[in-house]
């Protein structure tokens, strides 16, 4: 019985798409743990040098004007960071004076609904959904929901995020600030 089962497992085949999914899901789980365990410098290593970390605004528009719902690059965004700005955000936390995050937030990043598709140039487009819980100081808390659309690139054998577009499911943000990473 045991022998039979292992023989079956050995012959299990996955499509290239499924293999990609199986490779990327642990990548996102790993990233979530880095954020929730506040290992932000290691988290930064997941990004390419030319990264764009982008969070546009979401507007209320009529269905027939859905193309205007998300503000384009070039408009005012919630975040439009290059690597230098991301590094500044992380370096700030270690100054001992980043009061918005000192004492730090308690976060839980739940990442799922992964869809990954290879692009022509060897990069991969990976879309995930998130629920992120943040608890801060005594009773402040927030639940952020949204999606990430990443462009992933292999750099020296490891996946790196070359572009991340974060769509928050909110028009007016209900929290006091956005001092955590998504």
């Amino acid at each position, binding site marked *: 019985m045991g022998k039979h089962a292992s023989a079956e497992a050995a012959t299990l085949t996955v499509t290239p798409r499924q293999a990609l999914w199986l490779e990327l899901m642990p990548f996102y789980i790993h990233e979530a743990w880095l954020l929730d365990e506040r290992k932000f410098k290691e988290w930064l290593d997941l990004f390419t040098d030319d990264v764009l970390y982008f969070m546009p605004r979401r507007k209320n*528009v009529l269905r027939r004007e859905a193309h205007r719902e998300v503000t384009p690059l070039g408009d005012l965004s919630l*975040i439009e960071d290059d690597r230098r700005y991301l590094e500044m955000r992380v*370096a700030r936390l270690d100054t001992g004076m980043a009061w918005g995050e000192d004492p730090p937030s308690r976060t839980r990043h739940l990442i799922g609904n992964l869809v990954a598709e290879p692009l022509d140039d060897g990069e991969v487009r990976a879309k995930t959904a998130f629920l992120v819980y943040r608890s801060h100081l005594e009773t402040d808390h927030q639940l952020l929901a949204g999606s990430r659309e990443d462009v992933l690139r292999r750099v020296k054998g490891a996946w790196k995020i070359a572009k991340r577009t974060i769509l928050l499911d909110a*028009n*007016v*943000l209900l929290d*006091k600030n956005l001092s955590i990473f998504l």
Partner: protein
Amino acid sequence: MGATQTYSVVDPASGKVDRRIFSDQAVYDAEMEKIFGRAWLMIGHESLVPEVNDFFHTYMGEDPVILTRDGRGRLHALLNMCRHRGNRVVRCDDGNATRFMCTYHGWSYGNDGRLEHVPGTSEAYYDALDKPSLGLVQARVETYAGIVFATWAEDAPSLEAFLGDARWYLDTVFNRRDEGMQALGPMKWLEPVNWKTMVDNCSDNYHVPTTHLSSARVQTRYLGRPRLSHKDQFESPNKHVFVNGHALTFREAPDNTPRYVHGISKDTFPLFQAYHEATLPEVERRLGAFRARHVQLGNHSIFPNGVLGFRLALPRGPLQTEFWHFVLLEKGAPEALKHAIRIGSQANNGAAGLFEQDDVDNWRQVTAASKSRLRRRISQDLSMGLGHAGAHPEYPGVVSERYISENNQRLFYRRWEEFMNAESWADIPIAPIIARFEGTATIRG
């Protein structure tokens, strides 16, 4: 604290401020009537409604307002409230429409506010409905250099008088170029803060080297921006000035360098310097040589709820404020410069802003400290620089001797009292315009 209450909340001799104004519901309700129901309020920018039939949804205090440009190009500020039952007639943030239909019973209004169509005018209303009297309620609208202001008060003075000599300083940012400015935004978020604290904070440069040290430090290291220590702030030759209700700071800039905004870094400084020099002749023509070369507006607020320029602190109850962050860009500036300013603005002063994220917990605890019966009896101490401000030979308004002072804050709460204690606009003092507005720029742009 009823309707006949006389408010005395700041002691001019000691600078003590009564904390109840940050948390009391009755005070807040009176503010909505006596301040937000009367003052000229910033509601938008002409560039947000550039074409005929464009609209932009905004607020005057708590009240939803549609800023429209009608078919003939005229601006309107329309209360977003159907005259039948009160449903909103617009639920979008912006768009282009000739008509707004209420989704409840189908009453439809033109974008000039006129009630144009009511289902069943004959069949249900027997042709007895007085449509001309049932248009959307309109506020008075005036513009300053493209920034749209509105007021509910028919007896309010002109916007020009309301801004007064503050405009002499404001022009150095908002009225520099012939082509004017374009607004991007807003990003919107709720802060658990009384609206007055974030307005007061705009000319509080004392907090900068403490609250914002982490962000200033990394930007010195990564972007080559100057250090921001207490020593730098205390020794700064910049000035702090209160003009006709508006709290401003400015830099005397005899060195022909550009205004130091977010977005300037070691790398981008040459771009800013080149632009400053290239546009100086135009700015001199518009503002006169003195203002063009010597006066640069810094952090400031426009009474009651304009925050650091064209950004809004919209009251949402005594304990909460909806913050709207816009960025204004000079239309004719090079794209690289616009890019630098946009990134600098949103990365520092937005919801996720490196600077701004450290403000919120300070402010909210000022608000929270005003809730308990014990703590609300312990006043705020705004005594810094008492007796060290007055008239200045060159600069309009009440000018502090030093950049770091709480004179503007004391006068802001004094202005608040003037509005709260007035029966009508006739009781609210307006300082005469005495500054010399050299150059061709006008209030219109």
